[in-house]
């Protein structure tokens, strides 16, 4: 339906959308060596019990393979808790050799998983962000929007919450080698 002919009835307006960023993606880093003797940072999130369990399993495997691990559990995005979390993540990024950061399995927690992963890349450390399948595209988008479009993202099945304990342990086993491969760990 058209109320008037549009062929010669045009007006000029201003485009309402912002131009996309053209900044190149920040560099990423890989371990390029064995696990033994490395210090590994884990970022968990008090919101996600499934990820804490998987991270615990991976923690054990890394220690078995000769690494030392430091885990920091985040509790907030803002306020004193958020400020403490960001400061601790930054400190972790300074002290570890590489890091595993999760979990992105909601909108805002994926955004903060990616933002905290970026903190490790800013310290030129290898890092992988852990997100679930439903939030994988969102994770890549946020990484891209934060200027780290090449950030390595490991995608776990979705949903993880409310899965039986045994299934979560199986997922931890299945995805541990993939995590190491993505980080660039070699034998």
């Amino acid at each position, binding site marked *: 339906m058209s109320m008037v002919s549009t062929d010669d009835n045009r007006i000029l*307006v201003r485009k309402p959308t912002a131009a996309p960023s053209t900044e190149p993606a920040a560099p990423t880093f890989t371990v390029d060596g064995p696990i033994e003797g490395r210090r590994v940072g884990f970022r968990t999130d008090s919101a996600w019990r499934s990820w804490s369990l998987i991270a615990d399993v991976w923690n054990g495997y890394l220690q078995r393979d000769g690494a030392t691990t430091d885990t920091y559990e985040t509790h907030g995005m803002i306020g004193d808790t*958020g400020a403490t979390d960001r400061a601790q993540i930054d400190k972790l990024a300074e002290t570890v050799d590489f890091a595993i950061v999760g979990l992105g399995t909601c909108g805002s927690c994926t955004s903060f998983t990616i933002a905290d992963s970026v903190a490790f890349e800013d310290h030129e450390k290898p890092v992988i962000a852990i997100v679930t399948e439903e939030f994988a595209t969102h994770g890549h988008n946020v990484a891209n929007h934060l200027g780290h479009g090449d950030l390595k993202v490991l995608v776990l099945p979705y949903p993880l919450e409310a899965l039986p304990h045994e299934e979560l342990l199986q997922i931890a086993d299945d995805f541990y080698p993939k995590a190491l491969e993505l980080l660039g760990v070699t034998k």
Partner: protein
Amino acid sequence: MTAVLQQEQIEVPADPYDFYELSLEEQWGDGVPLIPPTDDYVQALIASTPYAGDHVVAILPPKQLVATVELIAINAAMAGVEPDALPLVIAALEALSAPEWNALGLTTTTSSVFPMLIVDGPGRDRFSIDYKASCMGGAAGRGSMTIGRAVALCLRNIGGQRAGDTTRSVFGQPARFGFCIGEWEERSPWPSLAERAGFSTDQDVVTVHGGKGTFPMADINNDDATDLVFLIAKSLAYPLSNLYLGGGENGEVVVAINPIWADRFKVPFPDVEDLQVFLQENAWQPLSSWPEANQEVFRKKGRVGKDDRMYLVERPDQIIPMVCGGLGSLHAIALPSFGESHIQSVAAQYAPR
């Protein structure tokens, strides 16, 4: 002085219906017809501010793109904002860009949360911002409908917020079209939100709350004001509130109180701080209201308070009363919190007259 516009100029149909169809195709809008952002209109909007068109107001998430005064004015034009009201849109965007508002989290979350704007000051009446009957929907004041909508369009077109894509909100909410109300300062027995934030009554101040929706409460059974406040407090502490997802130290709940109830509440609570203390002290549920497994989660997180009480928030200042609404009494509305967001207030800056 007329602003020289920098944004790309494009040719569009002059016919309103065809322009509407184009806006849908280009995904510029919210599904409702838009007004074409012609140069005259955009320049009139910019002229109401003390800024040049290329002045950067904010970096808007999710895409972290630059919101200049000109781009904001273009989106405000499409929303139908009255030219002199652009400073209120800018103030809202400045407020939601404060780090403690957590725009990155709130624009990408699965939650329904969205910026809810509350305006104090002379601009409330000047721009027809609703604060009396049906102020949260239906009153149709131009300021309420267009200023909130302009902020929403800026988040879409500048920040790149798109449902199911860059924003993962599971349900969204009607306020995602835009939400802007005024405070009925003259009927409030307490200082306005703006005054409580340190502004004066002659300033136009926009307070931006990350609100999850409108949560209605009603009563006809209580004659005692304190009893009624007690029940409001209990109603705020519903078990699946976002504020029980975290530690309770972040986020605020806004409680919109109608003028008739405000007159009753001012007798036992002449100071708003005392009202806030009473609300916080009674906004809790017993831990036994939650299933056993959930209780275990709360215990592990250290969320359980004294005597197994589950307080909604840690501090009285996290429950924020304000007065608005019609004179029909009987109702209050809570604007529940996302949790990981702190309310922000910013004064509008106008061009010198």
